């Protein structure tokens, strides 16, 4: 019962490419969406559940992506080894950053994470002997699993979908545990959480590192899928987009994050037909959703649905 939603979602994702194997929106945009979902689900653990804020999350995505790109192209690393190294790097960096930064709250935390994101971005642009500067790095080798090369849209679809489903499963599992309750307790009342024996600063650091590592893995996969990376892919604007995904779908709901990521990936694609008005309409839709469903699209709709069902029940009984 707990995993019913995930089961349905997995089934839909498995069937779609069978029905539309050549469809651009399924196999190409789909992969982008899956990556965004992993990022949003990870960030949601930190933002939605633990009630913190990060405006620099794209930096961890970038560090993961650039680690893979640099180590494979410049140092001839095996792609998996490079991914491991990238994850290890982000693990260490996020831990070191988290220790001092997570003493801050609210606006101050937002400013600090924003600063961190910008520093990483500047580093990627300026340190061009290693990172290729604003032009980025290209011809990144493809990934293969035991000699099975991931070299087609459909294969990438399968791999990214698997990783995404796992990340959703892990997120659901974390939330439905003692650690998940500790996260939510930190959100609800830090002082009460502390007096219940929860080491709140440790909890926050832990979840920050977990969500940063999830971003690093995604960045590494992304770079192999695109075979290209530039600082634009991990700029401040991408950080904001990730926050928007979490808020738009509904905070403190794993499927809210999935929903938000899906909308922010597909909406711009569909709005292309409006050409110059694209951005305007996009912004309008986001505002509309936040005004009428301030809890987020997914959470808000779920609440409306249960409310509707309850009213129906009351009508029947009275």
């Amino acid at each position, binding site marked *: 019962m707990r995993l019913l939603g995930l089961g349905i979602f997995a089934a839909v994702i498995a069937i779609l490419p069978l029905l539309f194997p050549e469809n651009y929106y399924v196999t190409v945009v789909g992969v982008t969406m899956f990556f965004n979902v992993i990022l949003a689900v990870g960030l949601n653990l930190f933002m939605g559940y633990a009630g913190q804020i990060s405006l620099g999350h794209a930096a961890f995505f970038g560090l993961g992506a650039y680690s893979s790109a640099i180590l494979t192209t410049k140092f001839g690393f095996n792609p998996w080894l490079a991914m491991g190294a990238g994850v290890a790097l982000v693990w260490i960096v996020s831990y070191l950053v988290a220790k001092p930064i997570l003493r801050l709250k609210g606006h101050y935390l937002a400013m600090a994470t924003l600063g961190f994101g910008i520093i990483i971005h500047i580093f990627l642009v300026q340190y061009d002997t290693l990172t290729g500067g604003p032009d980025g790095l290209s011809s990144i080798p493809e990934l293969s699993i035991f000699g099975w090369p991931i070299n087609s849209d459909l294969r990438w679809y399968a791999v990214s979908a698997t990783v995404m489903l796992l990340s959703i499963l892990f997120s659901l599992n974390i939330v439905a545990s003692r650690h998940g309750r500790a996260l*939510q307790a930190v959100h609800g*009342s830090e*002082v009460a959480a502390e007096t*219940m*024996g929860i080491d709140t600063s440790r909890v926050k650091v832990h979840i920050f590192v977990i969500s940063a590592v999830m971003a690093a893995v995604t960045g590494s996969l992304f770079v192999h899928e695109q075979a290209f990376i530039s600082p634009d892919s991990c700029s401040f604007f991408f950080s904001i987009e990730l926050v928007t995904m979490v808020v738009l779908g509904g905070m403190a709901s794993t499927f809210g994050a999935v929903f938000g990521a899906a909308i922010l990936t597909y909406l711009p694609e569909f709005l292309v037909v409006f050409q110059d008005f694209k951005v305007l309409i996009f912004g309008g839709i986001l505002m509309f959703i936040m005004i009428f469903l301030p809890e987020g699209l997914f959470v808000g709709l779920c609440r409306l649905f249960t409310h509707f069902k309850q009213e129906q029940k009351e009508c029947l009984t009275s």
Partner: protein
Amino acid sequence: MSYLLEVSGLEKAYGGVKAVNGVSFRVKEQTIFSVIGPNGAGKTTLFNLLTGIERPDSGSILFHEDQLVGLPPFKVALKGISRTFQNLQIFFNMSVVENVMVGCHRLGNASMLSAIFRLPSMLREERLIRHKALKALEFCGMSQMRDKPADSLPYGQLKKLEIARALASEPHLVLLDEPAAGLNDTETVELSELIKKLVENGITVLLVEHNMGLVMDISDEVLVLNYGELLAMGTPSAIQKDPKVVAAYLGEE
């Protein structure tokens, strides 16, 4: 009889104001020890010092003969001291039973990895925590509202929820900060029954309360604070007759 809590020479100043000034007292196991005093006498500061939320300028707090001064709040909680808050600190983003399950936090030790993979050991621990949380809710007579969101409960029930959450950690000592504030007469009677039941179950209670009827009715010992200083300490009947206490509350003739 042994002392569960021994406080000596506790001091805390904010700027020039001495909120708690050289307070010493001892609490016997399985008793109800009340702290009273006019507003601003330093009662809540005393609770914050005991639970590690504030660090005293000097003095010592021995619990089971362990020094508590200098420990962060969560470590104090791990020793078996639990509390409620004067201004409610409910986790409004969670359901009633989840709130109480957070109270059980110190009873579990399953790792994050075992949670991610839902290992059998972690599931066993989860069942145990849930069981204990439900028992704590039942103890406080709140079983029927266990699955409600906490933010849908009325004020009186939220007060009880804080007690249930504090109990769920199976503490040796519970600090109740004005549990009767805002309760009506029936609810106050229920509360006093609940507190007595706590002591019968082996828990020691430290109570800050303005409702004198409740304090005098259930306390084994009463400490009176005034301007951060210990004014008097003794049995309820002795305190009621103490001229210093009467003067502090009603003004001198």
